[in-house]
């Protein structure tokens, strides 16, 4: 089992969700996040004081998939989230030790 974490632009969420569903991935967790990589922020003005805003809104998608599905999921995300500009985001992949279905105590890949 592999955990795939993708930090993407908020405007790409719908496209990525649709692409993942099409690839056969049904379970995922969506988080609202803030952050930046090499993308610079912007300045805002409040009553004459300048604020540098470098924590930009992002969406983080997390999913745990069977090993054989991992590549399909990654491809789905890459093709739907890419714009070619700085700020597109990143995907991280890690191994998962176990997964458990809370409803009926199923364990392992059948819990996914």
């Amino acid at each position: 089992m592999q955990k795939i974490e993708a930090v993407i632009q908020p405007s790409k969420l719908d496209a990525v969700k649709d692409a993942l569903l099409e690839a056969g991935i049904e379970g995922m967790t969506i988080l609202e996040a803030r952050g930046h990589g090499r993308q610079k922020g912007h300045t805002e003005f409040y009553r004459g004081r300048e604020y540098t805003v470098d924590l930009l809104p992002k969406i983080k998608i997390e999913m745990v998939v069977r090993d054989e599905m991992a590549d399909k999921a990654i491809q789905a995300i890459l093709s739907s989230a890419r714009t070619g500009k700085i700020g597109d985001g990143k995907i991280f992949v890690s191994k998962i030790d176990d997964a458990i279905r809370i409803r009926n105590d199923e364990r392992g890949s059948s819990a996914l």
Partner: protein
Amino acid sequence: MRRSLSFLLPASLLACVSLCAHAQAAAPTADQIAKLQSQIAQAQTAGDNAWMLTSAALVLLMTGPGLALFYGGLVRRKNVLSTMMQSFAMMCIITVLWAIIGYSLAFGPGTSFIGDFHNVFLHGVGLAPDPDYAPTIPAQTYMIYQLMFAIITPALICGAFAERMKFSAMCLFLTLWSLLIYSPMAHMVWGKGGLLNAALGGRIPCLDFAGGTVVHVTSGVSALVCALYLGKRVGYPKEPNPPHSVVLSFIGACLLWVGWFGFNAGSAVAAGTLATSAFVNTHFATAAAAMAWSLAEWIHNGKPSALGAISGAVAGLVAITPASGFVQPMSALVIGAVAGFFCFFMVTRVKAWFGYDDSLDAFGVHGAGGTIGAILTGIFATKAINPIFGAGKATGAVDGNWHQVLNQLAGVAIAWILSIIGTLILLKFVDMVIGLRVSREHEIQGLDVTQHGEEGYDFAS
């Protein structure tokens, strides 16, 4: 008012005609004339009282929720409730204080500087009119209208010490401030025998239609003293703390704009043409000021912000307050534009130069706006709108009475001095008795949780 009059006129004409027909061309008796006069007076009272009660409600709306929202949106999320609670506390505490003793100190007969205890517990303030203050409405209407002013004035000061003042200390400090600074100032400008009362023959007649000096200069200057005495917030100015909700501030500012019609046009104390002048002037000045601030921002920062526009509007409202019932509409546009630019300069440049932490710009908008408004009132006041010194006598500089500008400066100076000295003494006193500022840890945690045991928003539930 027109409707009840137009009902009376044909009715009374009919009565006259039928009486004449019966009495074979006899003139109406003294009794009948007295009855008609009484009916006309009642119609006048009905119109004036309706407008004044409405105005009182509008002015209360300015504090709750107008000011509460305006200030609440400007602070960080962890302090939103404590900020709103400060306005609400004033709505409650000042009301009780006013009923018991505040009104008497402000509007009771007394010396040139302060009223006496004649009207304590509202003794003598009943449903019959007080001929000196408002001859066509019940005295209690006048009293409750003035109460709404007494409520909002200390609430404005809260902008200076937002996010770091103890709730208990704020309650004690502003209670004393209302009694010892607001009531005397209100008495001097509006009370019987007041030193600065232009309408009732004060020695230094200061033109202040709706409270430029009484409300805005006093609260704004006191705010500056508070900001300097309490010191800066933890992390100011290095750490950024932008408003947590400009949306709330926007709603608050619009409520202030609409409510201010009660504040200014209601200060005509009648539903006549002077109220119309004040209403029109208020609206014109506000629009001009908002545009001026936005223009200054557009040039200076490259973009006009929503916060800047609403701040400009409030600056215009403040500046037109003393002038509203004295100037021509075109002058109101000028006053608004000047205030917009001037307060923009005060808030964005002067504050940064001196480095004081006037968190919500109570001094920059109210103190500065009130001062410049009072001076411009001396210039633009005209007998064409308000011949307050007597029919045919010049009112302000545009009529030729340049001396009035000096009187305005005197009134402003008295407000400044009373505010500075009085506030310093009261702050020192309250600090000694219970301490003014929250601890550093409590300030970092946030006042909602530490002072009130609450959180403003719970998005998880």
